[in-house]
């Protein structure tokens, strides 16, 4: 019997704080052990940028700018990207890697997408459904297969680690270095 290598997982999130946006990207093996971590500088759009990008600014910053850059700069390839942000899910448009969004509970759009068949995992007691991007329905079977292989990994837990790492980086001034 051939052994299929278990997939590497990328946990991608973008935090917003006081108008600035900062991304963290943790790559783990299927058991959640860290392989690589990437951190973005804090991006604070100026007034002109806010006007120019209008309502698309959040998606642009989270997906096209921060998310895409973090994934592309990483040296470890992944089979699946997992995010806890709806805006970051849009990174699927610019990457050839399946992306899933672990939606919060009782999120109207998440409920609608789940009803339309974009859910890889149904909602649980403490989180909403796990969804693929609605423009990529073929990701559903591909992701379902990967989820089968990684078992019952808690998909939200690694984001706790990412946030703690970002907080530590801020404390030690690393985010300024990334910006510099």
């Amino acid at each position, binding site marked *: 019997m051939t052994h299929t290598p278990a997939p590497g997982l990328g946990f991608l999130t973008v935090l917003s704080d006081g108008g600035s946006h900062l991304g963290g990207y943790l790559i783990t093996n*299927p058991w959640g*052990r860290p392989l690589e971590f990437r951190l*973005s500088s804090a*991006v604070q759009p100026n007034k*002109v*940028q806010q006007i120019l990008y209008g309502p698309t600014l959040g998606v642009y910053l989270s997906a096209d700018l921060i998310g895409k850059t973090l994934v592309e700069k990483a*040296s470890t390839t992944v089979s699946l990207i997992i995010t806890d942000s709806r805006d970051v899910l849009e990174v699927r*448009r610019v990457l050839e890697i399946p992306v899933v969004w672990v939606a919060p509970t009782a999120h109207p759009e998440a409920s609608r997408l789940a009803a339309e068949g974009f859910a890889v995992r149904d909602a649980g007691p403490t989180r909403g459904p796990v969804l693929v991007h609605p423009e990529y329905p073929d990701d559903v079977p591909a992701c379902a297969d990967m989820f089968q292989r990684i078992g019952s990994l808690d998909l939200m837990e690694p984001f706790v680690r990412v946030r703690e790492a970002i907080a530590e*980086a801020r404390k030690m001034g690393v985010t300024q270095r*990334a910006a510099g």
Partner: protein
Amino acid sequence: MDASSLDIAVAAPSVFGTRFDSPLTVGVREARLLNDSPWARTLGSLVPTVRVEGWKFPTPVGDAPSVPATPPGGAQIPDVPTTFLQKLAARKARPMPSPDNVVFKDRLLYLLQPPLENLFVGKQVSVPFPPYPYQLEGMAFLMPRRSALLADEMGLGKTMQTILSTRLLMQSGMLRRVLLVCPKPLVFNWCRELKCWAPDMPIEIIAGNTASRRAAWTVSNAPFKIVNYEVLTRDYDLINDEAVRFDLVILDEAQRIKNRDSKTAQSACALRRDRSWALTGTPIENKPEDLINLFAFVDDGRVPAETPTKQLSSLTADCILRRTKDDVLSDLPAKTVTDAHLEMTAAQREAYEMAEQDGVVHLKELGDTVSVQHVFELVMRLKQICNFDPKTGESCKLERLMIDVAEAAESGRKALIFSQWVEPLERLAAELSEFGPMQYHGRIPQRERTGILDRFRDDKSKHVLLMSYGTGSVGLNLQFANYVFLFDRWWNPAIEDQAINRAHRIGQKEPVFVTRFITQDTIENRIAEILDRKRQLFDELISQNGPPPRLGLSEEEIFGLFSIPHRQRKAAA
């Protein structure tokens, strides 16, 4: 605006091209025109930019679940209910950066580690049964530390916590070369525990003649090496070789180095290493200087030799973790049974092998007249040698018992020690005199016995009660004792259970730790294996239907101990 900003600004429409009716073209030229006017202020960059920084970590070893671990031979594995696993998963013990992790990448590596529960509950790391929450917290304490003193009370699993921490660090690529230093009687026990908790970790014992030891120190690539204190001290010159270097050195029963000027302490401190972990249930045996001297190994320089006692706590707090049974009461099962597999001393081994060879020859000479009584006599003689060497009085069990009883007494606990014979109990009474041993067996007049039990209960200086199975295993209430040592094993586990139940009975408010001593590669070992198989069968099949008719050894099994065919017994009968 510089050229690079311009490039990115122009690239932006391609990203958004699919979302607007007409492509977005950013008027960079117009923006620059505004700058030319004296009343206009600069607009800044039209396109946000971002920079990233990254850190790669050592690749964890093995992507698939590791070799299934097996329970330690004969040990009773606690039944782990689902609710316990849920509770475990909810605790989320994680190795967090310690104060001695000063480099950001090091701190990051620990911050990004998954909760330990996930690894065990999800079976990514195979273990015979999941560690208790306080043990996970102990591992979360050890893993990030370069300098650590794990001072848990005896019986809480310092060995297991250390092995699993080492295993996880090795799997994460953070450790490659580990040395364990322990007392000689514990080497074999460590090997067994390692086989149980880290079956995928190759180990090597540093022993033998000088040439083999030199090769083991300097050439061997075994990731986990074990050496006893005596060999370490003897090899002081060898360990000064530049090639002898470890990522981690662990000292078990670290109170052995409490005398800073001893050769043992100097040898331990001379080991080149990145991390230093010390394990002991009694970090302060006699005086505060014991702790200062321990820190000469744990973190040399942290605690100066003349440090006043009142400053010790603040200087060492970051590096010490101590839990007592009271602290972890809610996590612990009511009773924990551990088998201590011991290697006999050289004198014991010589006497044993001679007695066994002679005995088997004698049994065979008896031919058809051999009876179960003959075999019993040989078994008894061999079991007595397993307790003490008849010539020298050496005893691997005594060596181990001294360590364990000292630790129990240090914590103010009381221990019951059982043997099937009175002679070893009297001998133990002499050897354990510093712990106020009392005796309760057939040679103690009946009228004195109640007074002995009362005094054992009430006198805080009395830590040990030496009992025979025959006299002490039934009808006594000794709930104030928390440790039970079975110095030798009874034929029938039901009798052992009765003995254990003197301490583990209604009224006992704390967990009870039972240690069964078994000498390796002896008749004790063979009997234990048979009894364990029977107990397992009983547990699996008929535990719902009351006790089995017979848990002890049948005549056939007794003959089988020496590979003597059962038919001979029939002939004798």
